[in-house]
């Protein structure tokens, strides 16, 4: 018999912890990707951000998933800088705000939160899909999540679909020419490289799926 887990503030804490670990493990990869078409700091930026997040979560004990994600977002805004700081910060803040004060996250609420994150990123950065940014991982992830969820999948399965779509989306940035962010300066020379921000987004969503394994 499969044990169905509740998605609450502990799950979200676990997710954020996994993000921190996975980003640390992929720091050099992200920096290398950013070296090819950017300024070689995306790995450092993300790790600095989630190190600060870990410290903030050590000191604070947010009572709800929403509150926790707002704290994550605010911390990223305060500590990361660069393009990814405000964008990821806004994404987490918006997701957190969308979850409101509820103690648990339903499959539907998670879908709404992910959509809110995407809307936050696009509202701030004005990137469309295909511009070779984190949106190219986040947008298909949101779509895949919502499709799976509409088709009755569990929150775990929907999150898994989102993670897979994000990975596919990140890889699909390789042939694209960047139209936003630092990589756009390269024009046609940005083609042939995977976008660092899309890659970190894929890592964030893979961590989500891993934290939700077994949840209904």
């Amino acid at each position, binding site marked *: 018999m499969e044990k169905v887990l509740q998605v609450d503030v502990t799950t979200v804490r676990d997710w954020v912890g996994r993000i921190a670990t996975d980003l640390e493990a992929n720091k050099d990869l992200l920096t290398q990707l950013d070296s090819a078409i950017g300024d070689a700091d995306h790995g*450092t930026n993300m790790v600095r951000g989630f190190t600060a997040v870990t410290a903030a979560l050590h000191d604070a004990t947010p009572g709800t998933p929403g509150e926790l994600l707002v704290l994550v977002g605010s911390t990223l805004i305060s500590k990361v*800088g660069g393009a990814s700081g405000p964008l990821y910060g806004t994404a987490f803040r918006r997701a957190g705000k969308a979850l409101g004060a509820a103690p648990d996250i339903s499959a539907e609420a998670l879908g709404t939160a992910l959509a809110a994150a995407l809307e936050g990123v696009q509202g701030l950065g004005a990137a469309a899909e295909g511009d070779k940014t984190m949106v190219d991982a986040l947008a298909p992830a949101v779509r895949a999540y919502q499709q799976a969820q509409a088709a009755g999948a569990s929150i775990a399965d929907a999150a898994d679909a989102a993670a897979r779509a994000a990975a596919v989306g990140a890889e699909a940035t390789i042939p694209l020419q960047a139209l936003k*962010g630092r990589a756009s300066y390269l024009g046609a020379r940005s083609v042939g490289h995977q976008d660092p921000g899309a890659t970190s987004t894929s890592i964030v969503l893979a961590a989500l799926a891993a934290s939700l394994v077994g949840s209904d």
Partner: protein
Amino acid sequence: MKKLINKPEDVTTEALRGVAAAHSSLVVDVDNKIISRAGGARKGKVGLVSGGGSGHEPLHGGFVGYGMLDAACPGEVFTSPVPDQMLAATKLVDGGAGVLHIVKNYTGDVLNFQMAAELAADDDIEVTPVVVNDDVAVQDSLYTAGRRGTGATVFVEKIAGALAEQDKELKKVADVAREVNERSRSFGVALTACTTPGSGQPGFELPDDEIELGVGIHGEPGRERGKHRTAAKIVDFSLDAIHSDMPLSGDLAVLVNGMGGTPLIELYVVFNEVNRVVKGLGARITRSLVGNYITALDMTGVSITVVRLTPDLTKLWDAPVETPALRWGR
């Protein structure tokens, strides 16, 4: 990678402590990473705040002082600072006449300054941002993040700073900042890539006989790679890019800027070539800077910035300035 540092993650903090120890005219808030003038805000004077990633020194901290910036917010190396820093700096320099944010056009700088401005508005501080985007190497179109801000920043900060010193209102100070930006164009060339302390690797590999034309100041590769060539040809190429975007005529200010690893003697060779081309176009250089003003760590290469002066802009450029990196008249 060999660098004169302790740990890569401590570079910006320790450098700030060095700035604090070296310049008694500055106050350095090491924790919040803010460099400001000793003495604080002057009532009735528009405050000037700039900031951006570290690794471009003397930009921006070296331009804090009388007649130029009121405060600078250095981020991590090549990473724009965060809104908290900018907000704190904005509060610090506000003398009741509002604050000008001088923002180089990079997604990170623009977004973080935008957030800071929103937060400042909550505190009832009037903030006007001016975005510097002078780098003609980048096509300014819907298909890019727009032109990068590079060498023109020095002129914008100096000239807007001079006007602010006269207690002119925020709108006028912002207008002159925009005017300088509109009358400025830059183009950069790298002979070698730079290495950030964090990555320990050069940003790109450049063979021994190739150069990057239209390079940025963050180790971003340029718009095209070409064979290495003489200083004369490099200057021809660069000024051609500038002149075809903004025809050069009349009195010009020229900055021949080293990227950090370029010997000064080479910058003077380049300046000589710029002077040749400018004369050939029937224009003339009436103000100049030759040296390292906006760098990319240890990159070797040069950027050339040209400003089409007006008599008023020249007067503001000549006004007294007293900062670590630019000083005259006091």
